């Protein structure tokens, strides 16, 4: 997916003004997800669980080289093949080579943000391979040629009416078909795809170093099918997705499901160790795990941003974010949107590429409370903002104004005079022509100052 982050201001405005149905659909879905998450956190000692998960991931990230080596050794002992990709191009090359080796003509895919990140589908299609996204939401978006707008619910920005229209057009369903009928129509198409596919491609929620287990969470069963029916299974896994031990996986499977959808666990969890070997196992003959860096070591090397690598891609921060709720994910302009996108994208792409995302937040802090691995998103946003100011990536007028404020604030008489003039001026028509205040007054009435300042009241004596 191409990077369009710099267009955030215009794309968020367009989303809000021109596509009100997006806002309605996204707000409705995220409020519901967030409610479920709160309820599910309430059923357990969520605070201890989150601290534990933070600790496990911190331990992992400070021993990552050892665990990567252990995971690789275990996978190979299980009969799986391990590949390493420094960037998106290498990841694509590895998958394309595997597809060529197996003369793959048809591929089924499980939902994977990493394959969006490395733009795998277009590469496969250019090689003449038919690609089926099999998650229902992803399938809808594939028909529409749109990227996912949410980590967990890729099509939450689409209304039932839009899907009815799309499926009536493409799958010849009844234009008034209910979700059951529509899902059945998609199932019929995809069922054939599963049975005929030469290769299944997935991401990986976790990779357990101790056992070489790729763990995948889902609700539909499409990932179970993708990892079971085709002859070859390829899993693309970000290097930060490891977990040290099997016992850690037990906690993370539950915590991630509670954070993402409020479930005690995903309806289906696939634990993939390697190719089928036992008699009676009808699973894949080959399993390939591609360990992908693509900017993750940059994030790991960053003084502050490394904490964002604890992310388990549950989407809880998106669901609870009041900013995300207004626009949905597309406005953010890249694969990872919402609060986590705003701290991860600058690390993965470089801050310059990710401007102005660190500023696309009111710093309300709801994301931190929701995050199952306690990523301090507001603090990370602030540190990216600081870096942006230091690198001069913000408007100079803004920097000058704040420097002026600091100078005035250390000189009380100057500050009092400036504040009083500024307040009074801000309430006049002239304010509509001032930078910043004119932006304010586009959507809001100007603030009304008190007739007397508090200082005046204090001097007069408060009774």
């Amino acid at each position: 997916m191409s990077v369009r982050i710099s267009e955030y201001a215009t794309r968020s405005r367009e989303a809000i003004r021109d596509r009100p149905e997006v806002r309605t659909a996204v707000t409705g879905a995220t409020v519901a997800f967030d409610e479920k998450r709160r309820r599910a956190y309430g059923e357990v000692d969520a605070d201890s669980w989150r601290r534990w998960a933070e600790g496990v991931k911190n331990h992992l990230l400070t021993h990552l080289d050892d665990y990567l080596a252990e995971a690789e050794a275990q996978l190979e002992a299980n009969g799986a093949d391990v590949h390493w990709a420094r960037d998106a191009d290498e990841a694509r090359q590895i998958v394309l080579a595997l597809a060529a080796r197996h003369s793959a003509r048809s591929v089924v895919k499980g939902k994977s943000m990493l394959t969006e990140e490395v733009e795998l589908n277009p590469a496969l299609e250019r090689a003449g391979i038919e690609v089926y996204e099999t998650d229902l939401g992803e399938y809808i978006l594939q028909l529409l040629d749109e990227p996912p707008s949410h980590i967990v619910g890729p099509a939450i920005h689409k209304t039932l009416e839009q899907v009815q229209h799309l499926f009536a057009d493409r799958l010849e369903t009844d234009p008034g078909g209910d979700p059951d009928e529509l899902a059945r129509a998609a199932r019929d198409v995809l069922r054939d795809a599963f049975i005929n596919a030469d290769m299944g491609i997935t991401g990986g929620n976790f990779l357990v170093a101790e056992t070489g287990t790729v763990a995948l969470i889902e609700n539909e069963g499409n990932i179970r099918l993708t990892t079971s029916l085709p002859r070859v299974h390829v899993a693309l896994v970000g290097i930060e997705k490891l977990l040290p031990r099997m016992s850690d996986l037990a906690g993370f499977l539950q915590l991630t499901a509670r954070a993402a959808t409020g479930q005690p666990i995903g309806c289906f969890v696939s634990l993939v160790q390697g190719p089928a070997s036992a008699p009676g196992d009808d699973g894949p003959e080959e399993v390939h795990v591609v360990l992908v860096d693509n900017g993750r070591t940059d994030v790991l090397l960053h003084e502050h941003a490394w904490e964002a690598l604890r992310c388990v891609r549950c989407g809880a921060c998106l669901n609870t974010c009041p900013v995300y709720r207004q626009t949905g994910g597309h406005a953010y302009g890249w694969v990872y949107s919402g609060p986590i996108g705003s701290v991860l994208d600058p690390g993965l792409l470089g801050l310059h590429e990710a401007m102005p995302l660190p500023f696309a937040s009111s710093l309300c802090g709801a994301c931190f409370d929701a995050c199952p691995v306690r990523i301090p998103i507001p603090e990370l946003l602030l540190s990216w903002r600081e870096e942006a100011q230091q690198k001069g990536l913000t408007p100079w007028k803004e920097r000058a104004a704040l420097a002026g404020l600091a100078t005035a604030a250390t000189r009380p008489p100057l500050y009092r005079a400036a504040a009083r003039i500024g307040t009074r001026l801000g309430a006049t028509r002239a304010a509509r022509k001032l930078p910043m205040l004119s932006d304010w007054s586009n959507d809001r009435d100007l603030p009304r100052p008190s007739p007397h300042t508090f200082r005046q009241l204090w001097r007069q004596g408060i009774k």
Partner: protein
Amino acid sequence: MKVALFVTCLADHYFAEAAADAVRLLRHLGCEVTFPDAQTCCGQPAYNAGMSREAVRMADHTMEVFADCEAVVLPSGSCATMVKKFYPRLMEEADRAVQAAALADRTFELAEFIMRRLGVTRLGDGLAGRRVALHQGCHALRELRLETEPAVLLEGAGAEVVPWEAAEECCGFGGLFSVKMTDVSAALADRKLDSLPRVDWVVSGDGGCILQLDGRGRARGDGVEFVHLATALWRGVDGWAGEAMAERDSGGRHGRSNGQAGRRLE
């Protein structure tokens, strides 16, 4: 107890009567209130913009102004958070973490001070019959964890705090955010206002949130009446006595009641 009032920029200029109500309330509760005249801005605008050098300068100034005070009270959850939570973080790098932590321990948002420091939960019954919606500023809610305090005080004074679907959602102010991302910011305010139940007042302990919601509400013609928490709590003590109350500045009461409000100020 001797209490220094840190009035904050917005309260000084836009909510002056609310700040005066905070003084009345503190005196009523037996505190001696002082007002250090050299106080300016806490530095949050610079801090939130990522200009930490500038924020440190302002924090230094504020720490000096309030150095000898027994307790510092702010009629703002956001500015209180700046001093209590962000100064220690900010000053760690500037090598003045100890002083910052000392000030943090003595600094309180108004409702926090009344309940956690003074241990007072009942103020009077002046809000009897009043239906209010409570908008908690995000910092008060998620940094200071004042999850119950303001509602307990309002209810203790007789108000009915009405459930509000978006009660805990951000109003979209966020300082610089409201002018840098103005469309999204306004959409956040719309979400709050669209989901607002029928109430007499919307009460908030943060002037910034009131400016945002009231500014948007007036632009939409909503006619919702906003009241600063300090004013609401003082009315809890003082009730409605005195004609002078209705004549007070727009700082205490923003917006015009257009009949949506069930009961007007006498």
